[in-house]
């Protein structure tokens, strides 16, 4: 437990000094992008990873946050640092969207839920393309930041890092809490959990809203960073798939899994897009990678890794016989997840 906290602090320290050590703008740009996606992946996991309801429409909140900062920034003529002050507003708008869509979407089964999130996402994209306030298909331009070009990326970098820390902190708090326990019970057997007193709807909705707020703020930051919001990019079908791949790759339902996934996959994606300007290749590779992860590493790197470590450790120490009920063989010679399983009924 202690070395886990130490490990987290070490990672944080590395991330904190990274832009001071590496000044190559191309690299730090990818780094900012990665951190933003990492925050979104962790936020996505807070809802979908813990509750088991796969959302393929989180782009709704991301784009919603982006457009909020764009519209508000334009209305209030914000420039420079003042634009960052709009991020909480982006989060609030995303929260509102989550409540409005969640009360409908969370009433249906998981299959239907996935599709509904897609539907809401498309509604958002079409709406953004058609309304004048959102600039239609031309979108909205962000104000130009007014700080030093040499360290241009730094404010974005540190804000993204702060957002990532906030998201990870929230994920950690939730996982250890009663709220998180109820979420995960819902994931395993919602009906049974409800029968035992868990109020499924408020619990799911709360997770959905928290996830949305973080994603919305990430979207607002991203908008300012890349300088514009266009319907097809603010609401990008590939967005959700990338986030899902990251979460699955790292480990669905874990705290650090999505973070690891983002740190690995996003820079790789960005690099591929730069190397092969033919972006269709990155699409194909993303699809292939996802299939490999799903088939070969379904629980993700972190849980699989933890299991391997646990079984290695167990093999070295003598197995302790658990206090088993009479007549039952101990559940397995090894503790933890590597136990022998009997055939399920």
């Amino acid at each position, binding site marked *: 437990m202690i070395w886990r906290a130490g490990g987290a602090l070490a990672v944080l320290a590395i991330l904190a000094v990274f832009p001071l050590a590496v000044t190559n703008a191309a690299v730090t740009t990818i780094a900012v992008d990665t951190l933003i996606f990492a925050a979104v992946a962790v936020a996505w996991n807070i809802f979908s990873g813990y509750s088991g309801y796969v959302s393929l429409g989180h782009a709704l909140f991301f784009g919603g946050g982006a457009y909020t900062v764009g519209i508000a920034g334009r209305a209030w003529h914000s420039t420079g640092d003042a634009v960052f002050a709009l991020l909480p507003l982006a989060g609030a708008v995303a929260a509102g969207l989550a409540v409005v869509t969640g009360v409908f979407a969370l009433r249906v089964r998981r299959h239907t839920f996935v599709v509904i999130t897609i539907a809401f996402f498309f509604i958002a994209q079409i709406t953004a393309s058609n309304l004048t306030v959102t600039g239609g298909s031309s979108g909205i331009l962000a104000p130009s930041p007014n700080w030093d070009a040499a360290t241009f990326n730094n404010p974005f970098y540190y804000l993204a890092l702060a957002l990532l820390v906030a998201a990870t902190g929230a994920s950690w*708090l*939730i996982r*250890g*809490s*009663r*709220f*998180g*326990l*109820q979420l*995960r*019970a819902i*994931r*395993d*057997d919602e009906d*049974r*959990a*409800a*029968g*035992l*007193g*868990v*109020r499924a709807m408020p619990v799911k909705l*709360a997770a959905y809203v928290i996830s949305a707020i973080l994603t919305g703020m990430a979207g607002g930051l991203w908008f300012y960073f890349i300088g514009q919001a266009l319907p097809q990019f603010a609401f990008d079908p590939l967005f959700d798939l990338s986030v899902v791949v990251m979460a699955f790759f790292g480990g669905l*339902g874990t705290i650090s899994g999505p973070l690891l996934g983002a740190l690995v996959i996003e820079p790789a994606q960005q690099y591929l897009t730069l190397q092969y300007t033919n972006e269709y290749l990155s699409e194909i590779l993303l699809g292939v990678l996802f299939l490999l992860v799903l088939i070969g590493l379904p629980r993700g790197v972190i849980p699989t890794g933890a299991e391997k470590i646990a079984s290695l450790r167990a093999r070295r120490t003598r197995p302790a*016989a*658990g*206090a*088993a*009920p*009479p*007549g*039952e*063989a*101990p*559940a*397995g010679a090894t*503790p*933890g*997840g590597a*136990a022998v*399983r*009997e055939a*399920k*009924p």
Partner: protein
Amino acid sequence: MTALLRVSAVSKAFGGVQALDDCTLEVEEGAVAGLIGPNGSGKTTLFNVMTGYERVDGGEIHLDGRRITNLAPRRVFALGIGRTFQLTRIFPRLTVMENMLIAVPRSGRRHHPLARAGGRADRRRAADLLEFTGLAGHADALADTLSYGQRKLLELSYVLIADPRIVLLDEPAGGVNPTLVHHLADRIRELNAAGRTFLIVEHNMEFVMGLCGHVTVLDSGTVVASGPPQIIRGDPRVLDAYLGTAGEDDDAAGR
């Protein structure tokens, strides 16, 4: 001796099938009651309507005088009826301890939702119960890793942590080795001695006759016999329900 749980003239149909037909039974407080009957007689359906997983078409259900007909499962559980399922329902990706904590009822004081899952007192109670049923060594294991019999014990354990007034067990001995069956029967006896009421659905006749003080027989949705196990054992109507009268019902005989 008061009737803790009273089912009065309950009916329930699924499409064309009358699963429960004017069914009436009572469970006295402090009893270990058995519910037996051939497959399809409506036992699980009866459990489902008692615990709110199905709505009745007609009739009433009372718990300690209070009407609980058609209440949601959550309400029924909170009022003091705990139940297990024929196909054991546990939370596979939570640990055994976490499975216990889910069922802990929310105390009167409003707890902060982000508080640690399960306070010290709750955890101690959970640990005691796990010790009692024999799962203490697995508290931190994922429920997924438990054997079939251990899962049944876990389901019983987490139902108990809510301190229910009556526990409904749906085939607790089904598919479990004889040693574990004895272990289970002993635990039930101990709990009953401490005052807990049980209603048990079972096919294992030895289990039922040896454990239950009162047995009700269900056939085609109605109660055909009710009384102490020795009487039930010899009642021709019970044999008839299970085997069918010779010549009258070829299908039943062939089953």
